[in-house]
């Protein structure tokens, strides 16, 4: 989902940076608050952040004959909300732009908006929507993580379409072209990511249910029910 350095006009770089910066600032503030309140949240942040590091480094082949990587942001979005997730993503993306020439400093804002903000916001919204319903919690985690992954790539497509409208059909038709490259490639990856992260969540539930209950990620009865069946 990286937009490569130099491939986004500077005006758009500034626009996306201006959107990303306040979200990051809010994320840092939230992170400080969470850490002051509950030191036990730090290991959970380590696990959810660890998956962002691992999954975003795996470039997997897909049905379109090109490779793309999952994002791993959904789990962190569920546990800590989208803004703290943005901060973790910004660290990963900064590493990749400084050392790997994946993305770059001028396009970092745009890449943070797609992977660190829109993806996690969508994932978090789905989690909030399904949280208090009778939907199985693992299904909730699957949907939130898979769609956080998907929408990251939809956003990248939109960012590029806005900067490069087609001569015929404008933004809409180039959006479809970019979706064909990014989003279609991503569908199988998003499904696998969702299943894997649901499994990871099962192990968190098994090992550390108290932190999930205390942080009100799921209610005590939901966690107990999941432990009973898992």
């Amino acid at each position: 989902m990286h937009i490569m350095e130099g491939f986004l006009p500077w005006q758009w770089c500034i626009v996306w940076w201006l959107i990303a910066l306040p979200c990051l600032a809010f994320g840092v503030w939230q992170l400080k608050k969470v850490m002051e309140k509950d030191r036990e949240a730090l290991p959970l942040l380590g696990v959810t952040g660890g998956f962002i590091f691992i999954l975003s480094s795996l470039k997997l082949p897909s049905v379109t004959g090109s490779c793309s990587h999952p994002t791993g942001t959904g789990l962190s979005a569920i546990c800590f909300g989208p803004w703290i997730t943005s901060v973790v993503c910004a660290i990963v993306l900064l590493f990749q732009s400084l050392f790997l020439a994946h993305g770059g400093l001028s396009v970092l804002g745009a890449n943070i908006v797609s992977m660190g903000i829109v993806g996690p916001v969508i994932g978090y919204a789905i989690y909030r929507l399904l949280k208090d319903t009778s939907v199985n919690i693992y299904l909730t985690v699957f949907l939130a993580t898979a769609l956080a992954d998907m929408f990251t790539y939809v956003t990248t497509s939109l960012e590029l379409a806005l900067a490069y409208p087609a001569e015929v059909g404008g933004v809409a038709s180039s959006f479809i072209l970019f979706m064909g490259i990014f989003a279609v490639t991503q569908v199988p990856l998003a499904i696998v990511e969702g299943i894997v992260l649901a499994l990871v969540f099962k192990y968190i539930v098994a090992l550390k249910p108290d932190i999930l209950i205390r942080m009100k990620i799921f209610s005590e009865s939901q966690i107990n029910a999941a432990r009973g069946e898992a």
Partner: protein
Amino acid sequence: MAKNYLLEILTVVAILAFCAVFLYTSSTMTGAEFAGSDNVGSGMIAELSGKSVDSFTPLIPQYEPPSGEIESCLFALQAAFGGILIGGVFGFWLGQKKNLTESTTNQ
């Protein structure tokens, strides 16, 4: 029994299916180079703007790994860092849990 491990089974099935699809596309699809979608996207940008890919130069100068080996080394480092975090925390939680059950049984 099977119900207890439903998620594990689903994960294995999904990963196997993913590999099978890859083997199928890589052996039948012509012109499948498995390049990064980032690069395919950049090609599309060049096509839409009517400029060549090489005419896009970084706005801010950046370091580029001199070879694929160096790049994969750095990617492996990134993944290893994540792996250490996850393994460490799961081990820490397991130890905490064990400690807790032992101290309650000893009382």
